[in-house]
Structure formats: C-alpha cells, structure tokens
C-alpha cells in the first residue's frame, strides 16, 4: 500500500468548507502547496484528503474595495508584484514580495497559504499586521472577520476552527501621510527570514506621529506586535524622532523578542538583529515621511 491521499477539487468556497467539515483533521486545504507538499512528504503532516483549492478562482483576485484592497487568500505572491495599483498604495507589500523565496515559488505560493501555514517567519504577516489587516474567514455557518494580529495562536497554529477557511485579507488604505516599511535579515539572498520587522508610522497635519505599528517576525512563536515600542513614538513630532529615540524603540521591541536557536542561527543573534531591523524600518519610515 503506497502512501497517498485522495484528491478533492471543490468548485466553490462553500463546497470547500463542507468537505473540510466532513473530513475534519483528516483533510488539508491545499493552496499552492509549497509548504504542505514538503511536510506531507516528510511525514510531518498526514492526511487522507487533499482539498485542492485551485478551482476557487474568485479567491485569487486582488480587488479594489471602498476603503482599500481585498486580497483573495489564493492570490499568489507573484500576483501582488504584478498588480498595477497595489504597489502604489501599499508599496511595503511589494517590498515583501520582491524578497519572498524565489520567483518560481512566488508563482505558486499564496498569501493565504503563507498566513495559514503560520510559521513564525512567515513573511506576509509582519507588513500586513502593520497595515492593520483584517481577515475574512468562511465556514458552513457563514463568515466572520478577525484582525490579522489575532489570527496567529502559536507556531503553525491559527484561529481557524474546524471547517473554517481563510478567504480574504482586507487592508484599508492608510491615511495620506502614512508609510509602512519592511526589513528582513537572512543568511543569503534567498532564505527564510532569521528575523524581520515591519514598521508603520502615520503623521498628522502638524507632522506629529499619530499612529505607530512595530511588528516583529521570526523571533517569537507568532508574529509579534510590540505596543510598548509603538507608544514611544506616538505623539512625538517627526523632527524629534532622533537616532537616540529610535535606539530606544529598537531596544524595547527586541526586549519582547523570544527567539529560538536552531541550525540557522542562535537566539542571541536573532534577538539582537530584531532590534537592528526595527530601527532601520522605523528610520526608513521617518525618512520617507520627511520627503
């Protein structure tokens, strides 16, 4: 008996959710499959049913909506790069996509898949959390929304319940003077992030920081928003965001990092670099806001 699975190909999100509800943990949603295929092959994931989502074409779209953009869960990373206006409104998503894995993987890997696989180093998470993204979750019972920030519960563990499927990621267009940046550190040009950081700063008409987001990736069990670091920036005039203040922000953010040591690098390195990346992301945001 050769180890295999049954291939199911629903034609609609509703049908997909129904199949998942029917088979429970013995079924897996298969989007691009670039993570899941490796896990299945290694035996790290085992299931009898592969619910192939490639027929759910409407979930591949990136649509302009009233106040921003709705990214279908099955939009590929390449489609983020190819979208005509996404890069203009949300350049940080382009920055992230340009450095995501390899061109071949980008053609197949999906935003939703990256988020649902939920490894701590998932690149899509920090910039989307910094943009206050919300996710729409479908099930037989209907749909619910959740801030992306609350979507992650642990390494490879999300808020998705049985029979639930991530359908869409919504990002509201930020205020006119708002910049979001993304930094990542890796061993070479193509690599899983050893540490990453996203920073969004918004300034009001008086050039005072009215809103800040500082999000760390790969240095905690989940992508981590560090509110205490953000608070150091809110209410500060842009011109008063000095190098010293950025050092404080970085230090406060890194203090919350609780990374692991593994074959890639040590916890000490990750913790140190997470601070460096926060500082650089914030400094770049300040620089662009000053332009």
């Amino acid at each position, binding site marked *: 008996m050769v180890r295999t699975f049954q291939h199911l190909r629903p034609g609609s999100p509703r049908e997909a959710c129904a199949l998942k509800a029917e088979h429970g943990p013995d079924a897996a949603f298969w989007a691009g499959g670039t993570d899941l295929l490796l896990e299945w092959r290694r035996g790290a994931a085992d299931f009898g049913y592969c619910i192939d989502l490639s027929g759910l074409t409407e979930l591949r779209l990136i649509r302009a909506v009233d106040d921003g953009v709705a990214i279908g869960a099955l939009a590929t990373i390449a489609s983020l790069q190819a979208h005509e206006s996404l890069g203009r409104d949300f350049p940080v998503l382009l920055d992230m996509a340009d450095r995501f894995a390899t061109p071949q993987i980008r053609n197949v890997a999906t935003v939703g898949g990256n988020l649902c696989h939920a490894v701590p180093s998932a690149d899509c998470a920090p910039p989307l959390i910094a943009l206050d993204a919300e996710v729409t979750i479908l099930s037989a019972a209907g749909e619910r929304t959740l801030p992306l920030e609350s979507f992650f519960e642990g390494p490879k563990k999300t808020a998705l319940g049985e029979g639930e499927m991530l359908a869409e990621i919504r990002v509201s267009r930020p205020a006119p003077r708002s910049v979001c940046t993304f930094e990542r550190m890796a061993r*070479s040009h193509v690599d899983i992030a050893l540490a990453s950081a996203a920073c969004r700063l918004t300034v009001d008409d008086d050039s005072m920081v009215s809103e800040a987001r500082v999000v760390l990736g790969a240095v905690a069990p989940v992508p981590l928003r560090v509110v205490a670091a953000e608070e150091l920036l809110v209410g500060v005039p842009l011109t008063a965001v000095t190098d010293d203040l950025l050092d404080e922000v970085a230090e406060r953010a890194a203090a919350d990092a609780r990374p692991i040591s593994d074959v890639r690098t040590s916890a000490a*390195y990750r913790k140190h670099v997470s601070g460096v990346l926060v500082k650089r992301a914030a400094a770049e945001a300040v620089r662009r806001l000053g332009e």
Partner: protein
Amino acid sequence: MGEQSGYSVVGKAIPLKDATEKVTGRLEYGGDIRVLDMAHGKILRSPHAHARITRIDTRRAESLDGVLGIVTHSDAPAWQWANCWHNHGGRILDDTVRFVGDEVAAVAAESLEIAEQALGLIDVEYESLEPVFDPIEALAPDAPQVRAEGNARPPTEIVWGDIDEGAAMADVVVESSMSFDSQAYAPIGRNACTAQWQGDRVTVWTSTQTPSEMRDATARGLGIPISNVRLISQPCGSSFGLWWIGSLQLITTLLARKAGRAVRIGLTQEECFGAVKRRHLEQSTGRLGVTRDGSVTFIDLEHVHDNGGYGLKPDVGFLTVDLWGSGPHGRFIDRGVSTNLVTAGCMRGVGDVTLGAFVERLLDMAAAEIDMDPLEFRLKNHIRAGGPLRTMEGEELDHLDQSTLPDGWPELGKLAGEALQDCLVRGAEAFGWAGKWAGWGKPSAVAGPKRRAVGVATGVHSCGTEDEYPVSALVRVHSDGGATLYVSMGRQGQGSETTQAQIAAEALGVSVDRIRVEAGDTDACPPSHGSIASNTSYRTGFATWDAAMDARRQILDTATLQLGSAAPDDLDMRDGVAFSPRDSTVSLPLEQIMATYRPESMTPPVIVGRTTTPMPPSLMHARYFAAHFVEVEVDVDTGEIRLLDYLATQDSGTVLNPKVLENQVIGGAILGAGFALTERLAFEPGTGRVLNPGFLDYKVMRAPDFPLDPGVLFGNYHDPVGPFGAKSAGEAPTTAPIPAISQAVFNAIGVWLDIPMTPERVLVALGKI
C-alpha cells in the same frame, strides 16, 4: 585575457563539445541511465552513530511482493575496498556502523515504492557503541575507537631547517589558531548507479571523476578479475571530489548480482549531502616569524583534520608549504583522525583551502605587525623559479642524480617557474589596489554601520600527481580522417572533453571538429589517472598530446610511404593535410592517406597513437597559483559581509581555452567565497547526524550573492612540460577566496574569524552578542 597566438585551436574560446546537449537538456548523466528490465534499489541506513549489528533479519522484507533481492554484510566480502587518496577504507557492507546514515543493507524491487516499503521490513538489532565526534577528543588514546586500525593516522611532517633558529632570527613572531567547519559538495546533480550482470561480467553506469580507479576498485572490492568489469562513466553534475569510487557503486553491483537483475540505486538530496562524503573538519594552530624588513624566517604549524567514519587520509594535501616555504626554517605537521561523522575526504583545493588560508593569515598578521602592505609582503616572500619544493623534502630528493634524467626534463625538487609575481602585479593594477588599500585594520570607507575594505591573498595547488596512477591515452584515426581520443577522465563541468580535444587537434594537425572524445568507457580507454588532484589539463593533457603526436608520426610515416620516391623528409601536418613546407605541390589529405591500402597486405592503414613518453613527475617541479583581490562591506550592526568587487587572477600557464578557464576560476572563487561566508554542515550534538542535508539550510551562493561582473586575469607563463605550456586549472581558484575575504574583513572591522564568517560570528567577535 586575449587568445594565444601561434596555435590553430589551443588558446581559442571554442564552444564546449557538449554545449548543444547541455543547453537542450539532452546530456545523459549517471542518474539518467535506464536499462531494460531494470529493478530499483534503496539503501537502508543506520540511525546510530556507532553500533554493532547484532542481528539482521531480512525475511519479512524478502516476502514482500515485488522484492527481488536484499544484501547485508553477510553478502559482502570480508575484506575492505579502498578509494583514491585514502578517501575510504572499509567493507562494502559491514556489521559495524560508524556514522548516522552509514549503509546497513540494500533492497532491489520492481518499483521504488516497494523498495522503500521493504526497508521498513528489515529487522535490525544494534548494540550501541560509544561514539566520538570531536577530532581532538578522538586523538586521545582512550577515545572510542572508530576503526580497528585506530583513530589516528601517522602524522605527516614536513620539516626543514631549525624552528628555534628561525624564531631567534625573527624580529616579530605572530601566533594564531583558526578552525574550519565542514564544507559540503552540495551537488545539484544527484547521482545514481546502474549495474547489470551478464554471466560473470558486469557493466556499471554511473557518474564518476575516476573511471579507471572505479573499475579497478569494483573488481578488487568484489574479488573478480578487472577485465570482468566494464565501467561506463557518464558526465557528472558538479562533483569537486564527491563522485569518485563510492559505497553506492559497490553496493549496487553486489545487489544486482544477488537479485539476478539489473539494478539502479539513485541517491536523494539528503543522501548526497549527508551520507557520502564531505570536506574535513579542520583546525590549525601555529606561529610565523618575520624580520622587520619583511622576510619570513620560520613557519611552525600544526593542523588536524577529521576523516569521519571511513576516511583514512594521513594529510589533507597542502602545497602551501611550497608557496611559502622559501624561508630557511619550517615545520608543518598534519594529523588525520577518525570520528563517528559521515566520511570526510578530498574536496576541491583540499588542504590549500584550509591550511593554506591559515598560513595566509599568519602572513597577514606578521605583515600587519611590521606595517607592510600585504601585496608587497607576498611579492617579497613567495616562491620563485628554482625555489625549493618543501613537499619533496626527504630521501627521494637527497638521492636524486639530476644528471641521469631524460632530456628536456626540468630540474626536480625545484619549482620550474611561475607567473604569480605577474598575477599579483598586474592584478593589483587592474583592481586599483594602491588606491583602495587604506592600511591594516583601516576601512577605506565608513558610512553608518557599513565598513568597506579590500583584501588580497594567494593560493597554490599541485599540477596533478604521479602518485596513484599513471596517465595514458589513445588516439585512433578513422578511415574518414576523423579521430577519437580515448582518455579516462571525469566530465564534471571542467570542460575537459573540449580542452583535451583542443590539445589532440593541435598535436595531430586536424580540425577540432574532427576529434571525438571518449572519456568514460573503461573497455575503450586505457587505464589512466582520473580527474582529481588537478590532473586533467596537465598530466592527462600530456598523455593526450603524446598520443596525438604518436598518431601524427604514424600518419606522416604512412604518407611518406605512400608518396614513395617523391617523399621529402620534412612532411608536416595541418588542417587534416600532410604537406611539405618546402614544396606546396606535395600534399596528401588525411582521408586519402587512410583510404589508401597497404600494398603488401591489401589493408587500410591502422593509425593508433599511444602515450609512450614518460612524463616528468609533476609533484617534483610544477605548481599553479592564484591571487585574488576583493572588496567587502561589513555591516557592524547585522554582521553581514557583502562582496562588492572581485578580481581573480591565475597562473595556469598557456590558456587552453579562455572561456573554459574563466569559468573554472570564477566557479572556484564562488565555491571558496561560499565557504568563507555561509557554507557549513551542522552536526546534531550527541548523534553527529547532519542537520542541514539540503539547499534549504546549507546556504550556497546564488547569482546576487557574488559580484555580478568579477574580473579575471591570467598570468603569462609557458610550462616546459605541460601540453603546449599549459598547467592545471580547477583547484587553485578555491584556495584564495577565504584568505582574501578574511583579510578584507580584518581591514574593515579589525577581527579575524573562523570559517565560515557568519553574521553571528562577526557580532560575537565585535562583542555585540
């Protein structure tokens, strides 16, 4: 980098002979071979680092439908088989396992899936033995013994003069240590072996750098006559020393005999990275003395390298001792030691990459102490023509009577010549060294956390070696005036099927398009030293040249006979035509010569050129050299080291094919730079299992990781022995990147690091974590 004048095809950048096959995906590598009725095999591997197999029961596996045969240590001969250069010594299958991943058994089945299932049905009981993973621990007399011969090999010592005198002469003595993680070959081309018995004869298809050696080792390993083995070596993906003779090939051959069917065993990425071979774990410690005016007075160092489970190398092979051995005193000691890690052996550049980098570091530290430019320091101290080859110190040289050597041989025991001086001087100019060198430990530019600095370093390697195997080629001329060169060698990307054809064409006097090369079939090729130890351009090239010259003489003798009374004494051969340089009316095209029957026998001429001229022992006069220049930028906050600019220079004598050599030089530089910055195998504490047996976590360079337009420059030198003056090509380029980048990093941030210089190590050295 211009093309060589005066030759028809040597020196020209002709396209590779197998270019079309490579670019259309049609080239067949070892893994592509399929034979009729082929069964599929899988190897069962040990989960333990060190254990004795107390019981192995294959009955459950054998009864699985579709299983055709299984081999275990009871099927394997009791004696050990041996790899080239002591890279392996052990039984084909043993009842002791010596590293996690060591071979335990192999199954042949109708399909790969069935073979995989059958592995799980083989019942094995192990008695755990104490393992040892650290090379220094393994040297201790009470360490767990990995092999019956003991862990430690006899030390290799090269000594000249008197170290204490050298120290006394020195104004400054520097001291240091350096350690090297284990580099992996990390091939893209996985390998496979397919073996097919017909009666008591076996044909074996695989990719190997060493066809003759593999045929002989297979025969000896199985205890059958050499003439019963036909090894057909396919082109390799990149090898760098990985695909020599291996357990894979011997196990497949054994299994095919047991199963009574042709069997193919292919290796997965994980097996290629973690269960075959790797570069040694190495460490050096030592001192170097120098006078204030920059003359090296002594070098004293000790080196240790681990051999893993089955390696037996007493030394890592280092010609650095020649490059920097012109001073009056020296002592180099190298020790090899077994450990319960995957077998370690030769990888491109061997000890000249590691021990060589350590000597370059000592040189740099000394130069820094006396505040001498590293370029100037190297120019002052490196070996020159006539300099002593310390590798050869000892009895052999002491009793050598140079006057009895054949005509045309260079003096033995001394370097015949070099263009390293030329490379360093012209390289420095091309790189703009003078304008970029800011002084020891001084970055040339600082911008925020980024520090820029330059570095220069040198490297060396042997031009092949007369040890292990002679070289020998055949050139057979066909009836239509074409010819086939039969020469046993590897085709692992070094362009040898092309450059050897260029040598043969030039010597024979025919167009290179008329030369076909057969490199892999041991039934056709005379036994010859495989493509290792930088053998191919130099020693194999000599054999090819000699065989082609022999064929040329036979052709001209035949032409003379055919021309009869009209034949002048001075026939020459060019573009496939025998002609008289003095009388243009006297000419005979080769196809006509080959078509004209001999009157006494009414048979066409048989022209087979053979290698008959003994080649001077290369180790005793020839070396080739590299000098690399690099500019780096270090980020002191993240520890990242970026390579901004790179110039690789090389003295390979006459350049046979500039594009082929350029690729070997830059390819070697990228391999060395990868080791300098990111490449390291990680071993699991307590088991020695390779934790990163694949490209995901074994990081090699991609296009954006190395300067996009590096410079290449070749030194001007004509070797007295090599074919048309050529020397070797492939390994020296891997030796210079580590020391060049190390020096640049020191200049940028003031620290010396172990290899690879990961961002984490940079920050630890800077005291930031």
